[in-house]
């Protein structure tokens, strides 16, 4: 049934490009809004919706995963996609450009929806490339020089990443003989002597995913791409694109039992820890609002990978929960930066100060986002970091658990630094007639802030229903 989320979107993109074009240009935004809301509904009511269409998609040839991990990813895609769409409506003035942007956004969402449901290593690569191609185009959407620079860096590192992944696919094909997830799972579970070819293949595939998710030695492209992209694209990139194209596949491989060898786990732990530390330290130095958030994003991805490195079910649960939280919180903070930029025209944090007095909604939601991502109770970020720390501790990785706790202090420090620079203190001169950003910026940030508060307070109630089943492997 998840197939409908691809088919509907694709049909929508095709239809709005047919004549009468003037009419479809007007409704393109609303159609995209409707489709993403539909996806949201689908995630919460997977069974009750379209039961009649069930037979259409029960064909075996489109084999798909529909476990809780995919559902969580589909949910995040829908939420971040909606937020990006609303901000795009406010950000892009020209109707023609908005139309092109909506089409690309829908194609990108198709790619991500496909990526989180496929059951084949190569099809995963294919959808990853769809998302990447759509995102390169979206980054250079406003055609300024920095955007081209960010896009080209992303392009080159992605090219290397996908080559590595394809080399991994080739080696896996030569040793496992098939590429479907089931075949991989069976091979890694049952083969006594896992051949070197398969291990190297998985390692190469993982190296590609590391580049795609911007882990530390390979993070060069990420801040540039995030900083230079138009605001709605930054939200999309930081919130969901890097997560679904890099980290999701890592989680999936982990749940398939492919990351069993101890050396792979050590690799994940080492890369995760390095990423947390260097991302957080680099974030402390930044003067550009979006660049600071980009480094913060790198650091948070480090937490997800560290949690994967624990290698237990709780570790996977922590990784998935943190991934969801990060999608919510980072898009919230990027919406705030977009709101500030829309009113002041600058992203230089040195030229800001005391904006909370003039932009109360933006200021308040940004405080919530910053506290939540630093792991302050009762927000949801606290719980996901707690799960990660417990998972690491239970796996016997005491030093890494202590490191995760200490590093969240670093997160707190750069987030508070950002708050002090931008929102608190005395209002700096020249901004006396600063107004609150438009409705299209306020609405998503309030909704995202409510989600993180609700998830944080309601966590004890949903822990049994939403979080833990994720870790139980079911097809």
């Amino acid at each position, binding site marked *: 049934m998840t197939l409908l989320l691809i088919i509907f979107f694709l049909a929508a993109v095709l239809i709005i490009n047919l004549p009468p074009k003037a009419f479809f240009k007007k409704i393109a935004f609303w159609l995209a809004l409707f489709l993403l809301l539909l996806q949201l509904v689908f995630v919460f009511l997977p069974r009750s919706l379209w039961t009649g269409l069930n037979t259409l998609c029960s064909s075996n040839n489109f084999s798909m995963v529909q476990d809780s991990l995919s559902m969580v990813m589909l949910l995040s895609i829908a939420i971040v996609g909606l937020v990006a769409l609303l901000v795009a409506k406010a950000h892009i003035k020209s109707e023609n450009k908005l139309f092109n942007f909506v089409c690309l956004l829908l194609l990108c969402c198709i790619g991500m929806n496909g990526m989180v449901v496929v059951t084949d290593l190569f099809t995963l690569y294919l959808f990853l490339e769809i998302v990447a191609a759509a995102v390169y185009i979206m980054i250079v959407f406003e055609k300024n020089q920095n955007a081209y620079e960010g896009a080209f860096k992303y392009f080159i590192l992605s090219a290397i990443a996908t080559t590595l992944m394809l080399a991994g*696919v080739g080696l896996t094909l030569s040793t496992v003989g098939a590429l479907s997830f089931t075949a991989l799972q069976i091979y890694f579970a049952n083969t006594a002597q896992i051949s070197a070819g398969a291990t190297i293949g998985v390692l190469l595939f993982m190296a590609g995913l590391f580049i795609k998710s911007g882990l530390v030695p390979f993070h060069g492209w990420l801040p540039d791409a995030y900083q230079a992209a138009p605001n709605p694209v930054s939200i999309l990139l930081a919130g969901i694109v890097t997560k679904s194209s890099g980290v999701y596949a890592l989680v999936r491989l982990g749940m398939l039992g492919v990351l069993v060898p101890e050396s792979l786990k050590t690799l994940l732990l080492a890369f995760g820890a390095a990423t947390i530390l260097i991302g957080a330290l680099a974030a402390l130095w930044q003067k550009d609002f979006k660049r600071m958030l980009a480094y913060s994003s790198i650091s948070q991805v480090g937490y997800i990978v560290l949690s994967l490195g624990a290698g237990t079910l709780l570790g996977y649960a922590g990784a998935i929960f943190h991934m969801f939280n990060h999608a919510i919180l980072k898009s919230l903070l990027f919406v705030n930066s977009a709101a500030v930029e829309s009113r002041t025209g600058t992203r230089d944090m040195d030229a800001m100060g005391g904006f909370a007095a003039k932009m109360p909604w933006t200021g308040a939601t940004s405080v919530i986002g910053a506290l939540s991502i630093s792991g302050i109770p009762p927000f949801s970020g606290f719980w996901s970091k707690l799960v990660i720390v417990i998972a690491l501790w239970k796996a016997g990785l005491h030093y890494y658990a202590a490191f995760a706790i200490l590093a969240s202090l670093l997160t707190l420090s750069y987030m508070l630094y950002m708050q002090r620079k931008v929102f608190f203190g005395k209002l700096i001169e020249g901004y006396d007639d600063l107004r609150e950003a438009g409705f299209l910026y306020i609405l998503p940030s309030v909704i995202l802030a409510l989600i993180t508060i609700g998830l944080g307070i309601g966590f004890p109630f949903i822990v049994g229903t939403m979080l833990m089943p994720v870790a139980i492997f079911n097809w």
Partner: protein
Amino acid sequence: MNGDLNQLFGLFLLFLSLLLIAGVYLITATRNLIRILIGMEIMTKAVTLLIIAAGYVTANIALAQSIVITLIIVEVVVLLVGAGIVVGVFMLTGDISVKALKNMRG
């Protein structure tokens, strides 16, 4: 028979890794954006042939072929987007050297 195939695959693996390294070297050594795209193409050639070779030695050539056909389509679209980015850089800066891409630091 299996030994022969092993040897053949080893041969492909050896030469294709070298081809891959040539592509990576070209990407890192050059300052010309179009040459970077050419290096990317060389790398893609290497993995394409690797997949075909892997399919051949495991008697799974149909799967390998269908994968490679998809791969070639993806390659064209990605290259098209890359070429568009290079042309855009040229339109904005009048240069297609890596020097045109050194604005952002830190």
